[in-house]
């Protein structure tokens, strides 16, 4: 069932134990990288929660975040998601004690738009216009957020 003229994109196939080892070590490396970022963020946000700083900044962002049914503090999570990745974002989200809908909303919008700098570069190298697609992601994330909010308000989801 291999398509005719399939190009030689397949790599050499390593045996199963090698694949398991590759997977475990790649997984641990990825985890460590992520944890190095998420622990300080989580601790930072948790400690900030006890101060007026988070409140003030939260109020500043409340109008924008409110459009999507999110509290203003969630803006931090978006900054973390846009610049870094989803793991950084959830390290910010967890201490905020959001409702299940709000977590879902963050997951949806950030799932579409995250790690914009690195992934924008990936999209560019394929020859597709990276910055156009990055802009698309931001617009689509907002559209998806409004859509989910709408569905939620209609009593669905």
């Amino acid at each position, binding site marked *: *069932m291999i398509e005719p003229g399939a190009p030689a*994109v397949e790599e050499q196939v390593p045996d199963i134990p090698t694949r398991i080892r590759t*997977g475990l070590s790649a997984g641990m490396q990825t985890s460590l990288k992520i944890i190095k970022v998420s622990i300080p963020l989580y601790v930072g946000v948790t400690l900030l929660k006890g101060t007026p700083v988070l409140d003030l900044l939260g109020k500043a962002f409340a109008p924008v975040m409110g459009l999507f049914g999110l509290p203003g503090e969630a803006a931090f999570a978006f900054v973390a998601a846009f610049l870094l990745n989803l793991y950084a974002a959830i390290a910010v989200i967890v201490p905020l004690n959001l409702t299940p809908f709000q977590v879902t909303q963050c997951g949806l919008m950030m799932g*579409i738009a995250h790690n914009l700098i690195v992934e924008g570069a990936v999209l560019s190298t*394929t020859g597709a216009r990276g910055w156009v697609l990055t802009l*698309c992601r931001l617009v689509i994330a907002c559209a998806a957020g409004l859509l989910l909010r709408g569905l939620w308000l209609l009593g669905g989801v």
Partner: protein
Amino acid sequence: MEPLLAALLGALKLSAKLILIIVPLVTLFEVLRHLPVFRKAGNIVEPAMRGVGLTRDAAVPLFTGIFLGLAYGAGIIIRVAQQKNLPDRELFLMGLFLATCHSVIEDILIFAVIGGSGLAILGVRLGLAVVLTGLMARIWKPA
């Protein structure tokens, strides 16, 4: 001191959850990705791909992106896109689809772990990706 300890404990718990998701996922992927089933899947989804303006050539990078994500799947996406010499239109359509819907397994798992609804996230992303890409494919006609 006590708030700091509580924060550290919370951070460690979150880290443990993340390791429990990432390590098995990456390992499973490494073990499975060479199976022929993945290549055969291309035949099944071909009609669906045509609906959003994509050909079979885009199947490998598209599905790599959908399941793995752009950063982790970058190697495969870039290589295949160049080798197959995908036309601009198809690259853009694939990029648009992936912009909306990528790395679905990992993204949804991590948000489900912290209390979100995975089904709602997946449904909206997949639906939007199909609608947007299908629409764009009709606006940007093949040359």
